[in-house]
């Protein structure tokens, strides 16, 4: 039934029994069962907040359980710190990068385990550079082991994280959303590496939102919901629909149907826009009532396009027209004044104002009009009004306007930031990865909201690395590669194959409706 090397009667390699983890006021894990057999790939799925990350952090020695037991190879396993986990042969790749930007790739890979000379105490650089290069060979990429990490792209950094885990030579390798930052090509290669690890007899715990990957690589799957164990099954005994249902706890449609009607009025027009070496000769249009998608492999220039339009990246050639008038923003403030709302792709680094309340986070872009006419002082009532508005409209789940935004779940944080982008009431919305790191329920709600907006006549430019999302809700899609537009897909041309083809090969597809 499954591809494990041991029979199900043998004690599993890793056995998690009735594990409970409590934080003040919250029970993040509640009596969870989980086990990993030798030489199997065990997928762990669940919505954000289901407790996956907490479970991984217990395994990695970052959290300690309040109750329950973990056994590794039959022995009690109680890591007190990350070093204990590494010692026991458990390597965890966390979702947040844990790299030193100032150090070299090889130093990062072998951090804490550097071989060194007995007398000189000097690190053996030749050795760690060679061994790192070998690991990248396995992953099928060329990354210079002597380069500093801050000179790498995001996907290269993710690969360094993976190489780090491989270098431990552990019995169990735990991967939390390892493909989130990878291109389709790199993701495919990573899945090959996972299979190879299995064939070497190692076990992999694979956490992913992408069910296609889970079905491509895993032997068994465990579903968590609200900190509780829901089901463990062999992949052969289940299907994606059932998993989604178990994760959400109710039936859900895969993607919202399109509601908006594209008008003829051009809201935004880019003609031959370049920005340094990052963008070259980009032309595109967005019409009122339309959702225009931008796709491509990671690092093809998608965020740069959005930043040029939002005035965050200076334009070096070409022209832009917004609402029929020439448009050349010098800063995001200019873009906002012109009527453009913006959602950044990196919620944590460039979206949240972590020390501020949800109300302040939502209203920060419209403070100017929430002032008393005479005193110029902010009106708390007006702020509360705007907040209540969007709280209802976006169904933001929060205990109150004064709650710190860091205390919300990822999906609700994203809704607050969407509210921030919407609040100025602009004609154009630029949404970078609107549902990244958001659970399935919230994802559906956000898609519905984008739909409604276009029905009201707003124009939406959406950048997404999630192909089903890109194809599911966009009217048209531009594909970027190397900072250039290499495809424009509409109607029947709008397929996954075509997007991937344009993004990764020399083929160019421009649908007749054309640029």
């Amino acid at each position, binding site marked *: 039934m499954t591809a494990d090397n041991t029979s199900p009667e043998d004690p599993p390699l890793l056995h998690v029994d009735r594990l409970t983890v409590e934080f003040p006021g919250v029970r993040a894990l509640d009596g969870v069962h989980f086990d990993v057999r030798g030489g199997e790939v065990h997928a762990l799925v669940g919505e954000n907040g289901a407790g996956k990350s907490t479970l991984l952090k217990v395994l990695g020695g970052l959290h300690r359980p309040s109750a329950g037991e973990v056994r590794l190879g039959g022995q009690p396993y109680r890591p007190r710190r990350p070093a204990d986990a590494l010692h026991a042969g458990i390597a965890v790749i966390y979702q947040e990068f844990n790299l*030193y930007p100032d150090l070299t790739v090889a130093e990062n890979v072998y*951090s804490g385990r550097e071989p060194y000379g007995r007398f000189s105490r000097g690190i053996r650089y030749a050795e760690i550079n060679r061994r790192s290069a070998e690991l990248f060979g396995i992953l099928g990429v060329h990354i210079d082991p002597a380069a500093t990490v801050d000179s*790498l792209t995001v996907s290269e950094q993710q690969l360094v994280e993976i190489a780090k885990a491989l270098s431990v030579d552990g019995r169990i390798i735990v991967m939390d959303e390892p493909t989130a930052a990878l291109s389709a090509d790199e993701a495919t290669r990573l899945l090959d590496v996972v299979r190879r690890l299995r064939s070497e007899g190692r076990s992999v715990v694979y956490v992913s939102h992408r069910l296609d990957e889970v079905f491509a690589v895993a032997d068994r799957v465990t579903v968590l919901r609200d900190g509780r164990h829901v089901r463990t099954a062999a992949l052969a005994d289940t299907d994606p629909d059932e998993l989604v249902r178990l994760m959400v706890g109710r039936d859900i449609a895969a993607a919202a149907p399109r509601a908006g009607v594209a008008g003829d009025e051009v809201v935004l027009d880019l003609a031959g826009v370049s920005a340094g070496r990052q963008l070259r000769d980009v032309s595109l249009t967005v019409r009122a009532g339309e959702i225009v998608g931008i796709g491509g492999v990671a690092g093809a220039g998608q965020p740069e396009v959005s930043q040029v339009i939002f005035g965050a990246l200076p334009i070096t050639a070409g022209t832009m027209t917004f609402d029929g008038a020439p448009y050349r923003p010098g800063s995001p403030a200019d873009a906002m004044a012109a009527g453009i709302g913006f959602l950044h792709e990196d919620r944590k680094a460039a979206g949240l104002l972590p020390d501020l309340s949800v109300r302040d986070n939502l209203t920060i872009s419209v403070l100017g009009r929430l002032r008393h006419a005479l005193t110029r002082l902010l009106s708390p009532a007006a702020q509360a009004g705007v907040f209540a508005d969007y709280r209802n409209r976006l169904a933001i789940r929060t205990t109150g306007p004064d709650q710190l935004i860091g205390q919300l779940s990822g999906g609700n944080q994203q809704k607050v930031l969407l509210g921030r982008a919407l609040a100025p009431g602009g004609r154009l919305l630029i949404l970078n990865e609107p549902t990244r790191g958001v659970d399935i329920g919230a994802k559906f709600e956000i898609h519905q909201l984008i739909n409604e907006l276009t029905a009201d006549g707003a124009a939406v430019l959406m950048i997404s690395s999630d192909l089903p999302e890109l194809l599911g809700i966009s009217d048209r899609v531009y594909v970027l590669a190397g900072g250039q537009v290499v495809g424009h897909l509409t109607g029947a041309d709008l397929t996954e194959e075509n997007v991937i083809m344009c993004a990764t090969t020399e083929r160019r597809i421009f649908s007749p409706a054309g640029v």
Partner: protein
Amino acid sequence: MSAALRKAPLVVPLLLVVLFLALRTDSFLSGGNIENVLVNAAIVAVPGLAMTFCLAMGEFDLSVGSTVSLAAVVCCSAIIDGVPVLLAMLLALLAGALIGLVNGMVVTKLGVTPFIATLATLVIVRGLALAYTDGHDQIVSSPALKYLVGGRPLGVPMPILLAVLATALAWWSINRTRFGRWVCAVGSNREAARVSGLPVDRIRIAIYVLVGTAGGFWGLLIASQLQKGNGQLGLGFELDAITVVVLGGTALLGGRASVLGTVLAAVLIETIRNGLNLLNTPPAYQRISVGLLLIAALALLGLRRRVTAGPATVPAAVKEAVV
């Protein structure tokens, strides 16, 4: 050549200053004066090297100035009380190490921000030095103590010899050994260091002890020079030490260190001080010149960052400087 310059950009201003002083003054190039400059530079460079580790780790130690005072007081009063000189010097170093240990424990175990924790110990330790001496000078006359600054083993002034040794050790340690790389790792991303299993707290405590000991050593050098200790010594020295490190090019936010930069910065600052003296400039201008130098160095760094656009993944803060 250009690569070497990029690693040690202070060479250019140093050469310019030396050239200027050589042309404008008669006495600058005399052997005695050059030696004088180098000795003074060496005295700042040794604690500067310890502070380089601290900044590479992304933290500060503001208590050094007070440590200088306390160490000098401890050493001198011990000598007055009849303690053998070597033992007295050892006691002073121990006092410095102890202050470092306290700093390290407060920062790691109690979770107080380094800036504030060492600011508090700065106040406390000076209070201790003042209380211990009751505000009086502890005057000694000890040839053995004097040897620390005035001695010339192999014909080379002792401080220079010590500084060269310390520089070599610091360079090797920070660039080539596990400990040094771990210090930079903690400075680069402390959370990652913890997850990678590095003994982060022990590394941090070790660095504070190192800086404290170096502060104690600084106090010994000062006591050796002045043949006295009191509660007023070392006022503002913490900023001097940080200035040479920052001017030397060690990243303020941690992760990278420039050992040679620290040493060059110490030489540059002492050369300028010396030159201003030779040119009969009032002391007030010396303060201004150090301040301006610091600003100029960092401004140049900022401007250079603005011209050479980095790769796509530079952090947002740096990106802002690029745009």
